[in-house]
């Protein structure tokens, strides 16, 4: 059994890799058309050729054919080079308005077919000649081609040579032999693609050339069927091409692969959705050529359908029935066989009388069987951390939310149990995603936990409030508890808000950790500088009172003096006495001036001047008074 599986797997590994898993879908065609469309502004002849040929391959109607034809005819006027003639005549052919050969053009083309020309020049000349209806001398062309190949035997050069050979009448075996030389130079990528170095345009050119040459010489090309499929795989990976030239080459090669006498690769793809469920119980398979065209009635069989997770085979050797109304689509009813949920590998082969078909056996497709689930036996509640009391659990049924709010603090645990039941089999099952999402209602901050299963597939979720302070950031408040149940193979993934819980965390340092981040994107709060308020001053009543009190002694003195009969009768009316007293008054006045307006240095200067005068006059006056007293005594 085991070996059998291995053999099957090995076969799958080899064969499945060789069937094109895609084709040019209508979407692809539309995109390729968009790439070609700008050519209709008729500014570049090469673009017009790419677009005309491309539209023809895509089966699109060319807008304003007459205008395009006129553009081509005008560009292939007198003095046109061979390359222009090639482009114009090829485009004319694709458009269905062949341009007429002028004598000058015929001469130019004939002259271009000479020994020493490169194979690309020969290709242009020969194609132009064929399109213009100029008779070709096969022997001469062959000789020139052989010379060109001797000079340059690159794959590109060979590709052009094949196209030249395909247009010649008579014996072209010498070129045909070279196909093998080219094919062996192809590089294999991932074991499922073949390409020539240089990419899409070279690969497509060589392929179309080789098959055309083989057709015209009526011999099978030296390309093995699996090589043809690998080339086709490469072309299909390049269908995203965005250059008009690339699109042209791609479409040339793909068209050639849908319509030649030797190899027609078959694309076996899934036509239905990848998901199979009770609502859509059939797998639909599309069998087409690379362009998405039907290949006529075929006998399509499902070799096997195997569940990927446990290799259980649910289908083997069954014929697919053609789907009415859709050509090339075949269907197989799967759900009636009671398949288990999961991904399945379907191996499909198509048998046909047409021997040209390649890559039509053992194509591997993947589909998945969906079943619905229901969430049952849901219990949520709290329990004490020290398990001193039995947990209090409450039942909730989908899709209702628990009416009352639960509450838990740091001494408690929050518990949730539920069962996910497969509604098809009725058994408990496991799903990929069984998460409990706990969201803080105010800040919308969410914390996600994974529910774990036990041996009976019962899902359990259990957190200790005190040990999950870090996850919750220590933020107490109301949290909503939501259950997310999802799996790639269930038809009803569920997000269910089942309860609200109020969690209380100890006021730890964690919650107060929201340090003001120095680097913020928000508007910072405005700061108004608080100016120091002036010191409290005593009221003017106090100061006035004290001012009066301060002046009062002076008046008391004056009054007392008056009462005592003070006099200055002995004032000596001498010069020194007058100067001294004026000087003293001046010094006191200078102090007032210093207080009011003068600065220190000016004051000192004035003081020095007045001081000296006052000193000497005072000295003189005092000594004269002393002398007078001595006299009296």
């Amino acid at each position: 059994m085991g070996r059998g599986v291995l053999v099957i797997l090995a076969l799958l590994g080899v064969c499945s890799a060789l069937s094109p898993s895609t084709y040019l879908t209508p979407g692809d065609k539309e995109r390729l058309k968009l790439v070609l469309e700008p050519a209709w502004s008729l500014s570049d002849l090469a673009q017009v050729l790419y677009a005309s040929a491309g539209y023809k391959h895509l089966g699109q109607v060319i807008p304003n054919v007459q205008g395009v034809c006129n553009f081509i005819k005008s560009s292939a006027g007198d003095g046109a080079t061979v390359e222009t003639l090639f482009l114009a005549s090829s485009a004319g052919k694709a458009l269905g308005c062949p341009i007429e050969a002028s004598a000058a053009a015929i001469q130019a083309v004939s002259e271009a077919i000479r020994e020493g020309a490169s194979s690309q020049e020969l290709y242009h000349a020969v194609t132009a000649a064929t399109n213009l209806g100029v008779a070709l001398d096969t022997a001469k062309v062959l000789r020139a081609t052989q010379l060109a190949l001797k000079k340059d035997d690159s794959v590109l050069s060979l590709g052009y040579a094949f196209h030249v050979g395909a247009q010649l009448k008579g014996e072209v075996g010498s070129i045909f032999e070279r196909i093998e030389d080219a094919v062996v130079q192809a590089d294999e990528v991932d074991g499922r693609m073949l390409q020539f170095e240089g990419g899409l345009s070279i690969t497509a050119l060589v392929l179309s050339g080789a098959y055309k040459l083989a057709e015209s010489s009526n011999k099978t090309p030296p390309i093995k069927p699996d090589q043809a499929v690998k080339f086709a795989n490469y072309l299909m990976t390049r269908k995203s091409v965005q250059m008009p030239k690339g699109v042209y080459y791609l479409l040339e090669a793909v068209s050639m692969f849908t319509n030649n006498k030797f190899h027609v690769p078959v694309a076996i793809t899934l036509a239905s959705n990848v998901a199979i469920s009770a609502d859509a119980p059939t797998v639909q398979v599309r069998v087409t050529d690379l362009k998405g065209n039907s290949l006529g009635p075929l006998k399509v069989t499902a070799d096997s359908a195997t569940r990927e997770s446990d290799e259980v085979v649910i289908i083997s050797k069954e014929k697919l029935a053609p789907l009415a109304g859709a050509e090339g689509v075949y269907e197989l009813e799967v759900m009636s066989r009671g398949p288990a949920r999961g991904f399945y590998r379907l191996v499909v082969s198509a048998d046909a009388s047409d021997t040209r078909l390649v890559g039509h056996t053992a194509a591997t497709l993947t589909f998945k069987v969906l079943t619905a689930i229901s969430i049952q036996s849901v219990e949520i509640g709290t329990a004490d951390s020290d398990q001193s009391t039995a947990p209090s659990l409450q039942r909730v049924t989908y899709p209702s939310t628990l009416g009352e709010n639960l509450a838990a603090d740091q001494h408690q645990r929050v518990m949730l149990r539920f069962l996910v039941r497969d509604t098809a089999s009725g058994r408990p099952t496991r799903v990929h995603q069984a998460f409990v999402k706990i969201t803080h209602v105010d800040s919308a901050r969410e914390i996600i936990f994974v529910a774990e299963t036990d041996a009976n597939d019962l899902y359990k979720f259990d957190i200790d409030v005190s040990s999950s302070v870090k996850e919750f950031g220590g933020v107490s408040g109301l949290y909503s508890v939501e259950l997310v149940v999802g799996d790639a193979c269930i038809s009803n993934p569920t997000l269910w808000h089942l309860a609200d819980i109020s969690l209380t965390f100890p006021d730890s340092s964690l919650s107060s950790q929201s340090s003001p981040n120095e680097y913020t994107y928000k508007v910072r709060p405005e700061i108004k500088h608080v100016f120091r308020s002036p010191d409290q001053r005593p009221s003017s009543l106090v100061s006035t009172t004290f001012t009066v009190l301060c002046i009062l002694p002076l008046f008391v003195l004056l009054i007392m003096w008056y009462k005592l009969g003070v006099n200055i009768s002995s004032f000596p009316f001498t010069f020194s006495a007058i100067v001294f007293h004026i000087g003293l008054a001046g010094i006191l006045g200078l102090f007032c001036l210093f207080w009011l307006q003068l600065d220190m240095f000016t004051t000192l200067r004035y003081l020095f001047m007045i001081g000296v005068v006052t000193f000497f006059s005072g000295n003189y006056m005092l000594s004269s008074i002393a002398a007078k007293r001595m006299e009296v005594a």
Partner: protein
Amino acid sequence: MLRLLVLSVCVAATVATNTLVLVDTLATRETHSIFLKSLQERGHEVSVKAADDPSLQLSRYGEYLYQNLVILAPGVEEFGGALSVETIVEFVDGGGNVLVAGSRDAADLIRELVTEVGVEMDEEGAAVIDHLHYDANDDGQHTLIAAPSSGLIESDVMVGPSDGTPILYRGTGLITDAENPLVLPVLRAPSTSYCYNPTQAITDYPHATGQNMLLVAALQARNNARVVVSGSLEFFSDAFIMASVQTPQGSFHERSGNGKVVEALSRWVFKEEGVLRVVSIDHHLEGEKHPPAAYTIKQDVEYKIKVERLVAGSWKPFNTTDLQMEFVRIDPFVRVTMIPNSEGVFSVTFKVPDVYGVYQFKVEYNRVGFTRLFNTTQVSVRPFTHLEYERFIECAYPYYASAISMMVGVFFFSLVFLHHKDPAPKSKAE
């Protein structure tokens, strides 16, 4: 330094920017042609090279050859030529912008590179899965995420105006440190998503779940260099940009939101959007025209700053109502919001604090999506000179009065003391 920065931005705005695009295979040129074409249309000189091209180099003779680097090569095991994670980090340090796309199977090299910018890709093989938000074209594993546009960062500058179309994404999840303010969550995963290997049952806690997981992250470094990291190469692809979106909830959108977001995001990352510069600064006393040598405490000062924003390649006046000016002496003493006018000149008048010292006028404008605007001008603030204090204080009148009375007293006393003629003893004796 700032002038240099302004200058370099000017140069970048006028001269074509050189952008190097590194790819795994040259076919990426075709699968991502819309993205690359839009770069070219916006004036980038785009050079597409294989990531292991032995002739790769970012700088020559100490000057960077490119302003922008796009790495659409999740599979590259080792960069070619002179390129390495270190040189790319140096490139970012030198102000270069980088866009990196990863994938489920991104090579260690790419993981190492994004770790340098504060983003971690989930482990190899893990894919973002969401069983509730996937597109109908999904291959069955629900790894083609149709992320609701509500997960986009609220910044028109970075992701353009939101129009509610879901964004297609297939790839790995990104994990960032929520405490790192320089890393911005451009696109958050839906809250029902998680990142795990879809073919393996969940045994360990997934590294990234829900909204804590990012699909696209951005870094604006302190030197204003920008880096965008996406865990999905296809996020930028033509296929996703042109795709329609059909969600399991039944809403259908003709086009995914990818095109718009990729366009806006690439404008942002290559500094075509959200770039600000300071043109001029002016400060003086209220009613005057020129700045004084030093301000005195409690004076009224007017401060003006002209700011411009790069709009479609040319500098236009910037307008916002939340530009703030700080008057800083170690700590800000004053922080006020400035009033804009239509010329892009923001002005404010305020009173200098009554604490003297060396201050700075500081304008720091740091908003999501914009380059960091930072400008300081140093001025000194001195205290009052002795002449500038209040002169006649009412409550000091007793002092004035006593001093004056003292002086008057001295004058008269000296007069009386020296020249008093005592007639009394004679009469007594008589």
